[in-house]
């Protein structure tokens, strides 16, 4: 039998005005198990708390009920009070007689009667309480960042600067990501490489950062603070430690059929190549599909010419297993495949390019050395049409395209138009747009500059058709403002294509048990309040993997994710939620229903030896990982035998409350 103390708070007149607190305290004295009951003006005050402490000691109370304001207000306070008097914090129950009683009722008799019932319910629940101890789990002080674009780099730098080790796993041969492919950035028009490459170098040289390039996450197990990842480092057939990045091999390579991924496949590269001049690691990689040595067994020119002896045709994929405390998803995006939009003649003419391809054409290190020339005949174009929203804002039942706004296209289109007009005033630029969406600091000013200062021809409407006519592209579109159909004979057409999550995102999401939306963007734990966390604890989101965003937003989110990671890694151990689910092994059927409704993947099954009156032998039993369980209780209801229960809100606790209320 519990020895319960009841403490009725007046809350000044907040409670006492409509609840006869003395009558409540008196009535509760008659409840079974209540050995002490009193009232006081302000229970949460120092004097009030002292009174509770003293009563606990004096009457050897095993639990207390405080009738006061909402537990959301002072439950933590009174739990601390109880702890300081030697009680378990979970032996405290609050009867909410202010927000849910005195403040809503005017009649004192009514208020008092209800307060007594609420207090009785709290006492009834407390009778079934048991001391709870929150478990702890250790934290591995290392973070894994998946993706080496600006999002991953920024998160890694911030985490590493706080003194924690970070591994960046990048699937391509170099870090840098999409930002490395950009020519200029809006709205400042500074060169993308100029601001990115120093960060890449910083990451490479950071003693706490370990870049694992040309590698992908193979599998993941464990939970927050205790992940174990297996990383597959693909064979690049170059000894990374020996290669100096001199590039002799890339010059000697006789194969010239590989398509240069970095330049959006606009030009060819050798079978052995370094993606771009500032690549990190600055190490070559061999494309085995193109390499003559792998295809014919001959050649080997690169090997003969490598003074460092770095070429290793025998190299194999390598599996790296490491432990991590936190994981950051920064897998970024790719432009959608424009070939589905044949009305824009993307498949018919090389002069119809996507914006990212155009970005490479405009870039000084790109396939045209920054010369604005048409891919088909290398002639200088005089009239360019940009079509916005290609593949964005489509209905979901449309086979092609995405339902969302890709967010960055309006701005990069304004940038492209401006850059062209700046460098080549002779070139006419027409932009077909549905809405110019430019919310962001200095964004609308930037767009207006394109219109006003650079005289870019913005046409409100969409292009219906692009047809190749001789060496021209006949663009037919609508001008909604002028109520006419326009026809433009353009030399080049740029498609501002939608962006979509990297194709690896879906399988990664499954591996991490991180939830994703129908578009394969990672879902945040709470759309407003936890925007950089994934629902499973210890998984964080950075950059476009979570949703379309531009560079400043990406960097901001990367920093936010890093702050969350640091907050986690700086703890030596994690205190788990004490109110977690728990299996009664004697009666668990092992039927796997609870696992299906657990939003966190906290439930696993193991074969255990059970000795109970009903069963002796080995049986499949549900096990709750207390470090992962958040205590929602979904499992408890799905369990037909009642083997799964929730500590702090057990079946018998809640039923006791029901009984007391209905008494």
């Amino acid at each position, binding site marked *: 039998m519990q020895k319960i103390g009841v403490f009725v708070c007046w809350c000044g007149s907040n409670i006492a005005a409509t609840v006869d607190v003395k009558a409540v305290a008196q009535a509760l004295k008659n409840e079974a198990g209540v050995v002490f009951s009193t009232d006081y003006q302000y229970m949460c005050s120092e004097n009030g708390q002292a009174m509770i402490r003293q009563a606990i000691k004096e009457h050897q109370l095993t639990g207390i009920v405080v009738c006061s304001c909402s537990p959301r207000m002072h439950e933590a306070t009174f739990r601390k009070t109880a702890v300081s008097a030697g009680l378990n914090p979970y032996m405290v129950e609050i009867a909410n007689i202010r927000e849910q009683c005195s403040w809503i009722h005017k009649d004192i008799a009514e208020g008092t009667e209800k307060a007594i019932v609420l207090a009785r319910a709290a006492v009834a629940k407390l009778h079934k309480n048991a001391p709870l101890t929150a478990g702890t789990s250790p934290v591995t002080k290392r973070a894994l960042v998946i993706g080496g674009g600006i999002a991953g780099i920024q998160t890694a730098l911030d985490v590493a600067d706080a003194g924690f080790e970070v591994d960046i796993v990048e699937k391509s041969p170099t870090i840098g990501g999409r930002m490395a492919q950009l020519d200029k950035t809006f709205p400042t028009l500074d060169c993308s490489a100029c601001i990115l490459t120093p960060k890449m170098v910083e990451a490479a040289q950071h003693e706490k950062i370990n870049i694992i390039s040309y590698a992908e996450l193979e599998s993941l197990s464990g939970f927050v603070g205790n992940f174990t990842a297996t990383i597959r480092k693909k064979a690049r057939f170059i000894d990374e430690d020996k290669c100096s990045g001199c590039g002799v091999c890339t010059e000697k390579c006789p194969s010239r059929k590989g398509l240069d991924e970095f330049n959006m496949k606009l030009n060819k590269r050798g079978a052995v190549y370094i993606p771009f001049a500032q690549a990190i690691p600055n190490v070559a990689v061999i494309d085995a599909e193109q390499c003559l040595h792998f295809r014919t067994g001959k050649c080997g020119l690169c090997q003969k010419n490598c003074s460092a002896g770095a070429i290793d045709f025998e190299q194999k994929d390598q599996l790296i297993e490491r432990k991590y405390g936190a994981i950051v998803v920064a897998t970024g995006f790719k432009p959608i495949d424009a070939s589905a939009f044949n009305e824009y003649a993307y498949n018919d003419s090389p002069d119809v390019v996507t914006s990212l391809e155009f970005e490479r054409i405009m870039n000084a290190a790109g396939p045209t050395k920054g010369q604005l020339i048409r891919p088909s005949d290398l002639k200088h174009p005089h009239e360019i049409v940009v079509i916005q*929203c290609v593949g964005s*804002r489509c*209905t979901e039942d*449309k086979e092609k395209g995405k339902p969302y706004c890709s967010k960055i296209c309006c701005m990069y289109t304004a940038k492209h138009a401006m850059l062209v007009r700046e460098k080549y005033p002779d070139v006419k630029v027409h932009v077909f747009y549905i809405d110019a969406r430019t919310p962001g600091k200095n964004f609308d000013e930037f767009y207006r500059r394109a219109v006003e200062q650079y005289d870019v021809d913005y046409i409100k*409407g*969409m*292009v*219906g058709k692009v047809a190749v006519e001789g060496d021209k592209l006949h663009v037919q579109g*609508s001008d*909604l403002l002028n109520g006419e159909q326009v026809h433009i004979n353009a030399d080049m057409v740029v498609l501002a294509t939608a962006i979509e999550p990297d194709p690896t995102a879906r399988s990664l999401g499954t591996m991490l048990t991180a939830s994703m939306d129908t578009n394969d963007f990672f879902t945040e734990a709470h759309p407003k309040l936890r925007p950089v966390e994934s629902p499973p604890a210890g998984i964080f989101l950075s950059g476009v993997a979570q949703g379309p965003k531009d560079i400043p937003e990406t960097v901001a989110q990367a920093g936010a994710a890093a702050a969350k990671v640091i907050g986690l890694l700086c703890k030596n151990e994690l205190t788990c939620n004490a109110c977690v689910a728990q299996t009664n092994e004697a009666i668990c059927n092992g039927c796997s229903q609870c696992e299906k409704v657990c939003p966190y993947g906290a439930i696993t099954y193991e074969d255990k030896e059970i000795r109970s009156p009903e069963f002796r032998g080995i049986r499949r039993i549900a096990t709750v990982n207390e470090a992962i369980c958040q205590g929602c209780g979904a499992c408890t209801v799905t369990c037909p035998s009642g083997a799964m229960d929730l500590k702090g809100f057990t079946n018998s606790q809640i039923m006791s409350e029901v009984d007391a209320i209905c008494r």
Partner: protein
Amino acid sequence: MSLTNKVTAEDVLRISGVDASRCMQCGKCSGACPNYDEMDLHPHQFAALLRKGEVERLMESNALYQCLSCFACSQRCPRNVEPAKIIEAVRLTVIRQKGRNYMTADRLPEKLDEDLPQQALVSAMRKYSK
């Protein structure tokens, strides 16, 4: 359709099976239209005016008979609004009304033309009269 022969936007929506509220007025339909210059109202306006309930204006439009029913607008529409179906539905509501046949048999001889496939006349009859 109600007995008073008053055609409402709901009638057109029902006949066409189109959800005009999905239209975001991007104008791609009108950009794709091969007969744009011949039409007084354009595909995107059919969606827009229908949204506003201005069926009368649509019914008075000569675009009903200039639309080639090529369905380019429907096919290109990023939001599955299918303007061609709206035009078709409005046209149907017009020619179903008494004395509103757009094409009658007695006008056929004047249209006969060596280069014009007769099949076209047959289908025009089907399309423009009840």
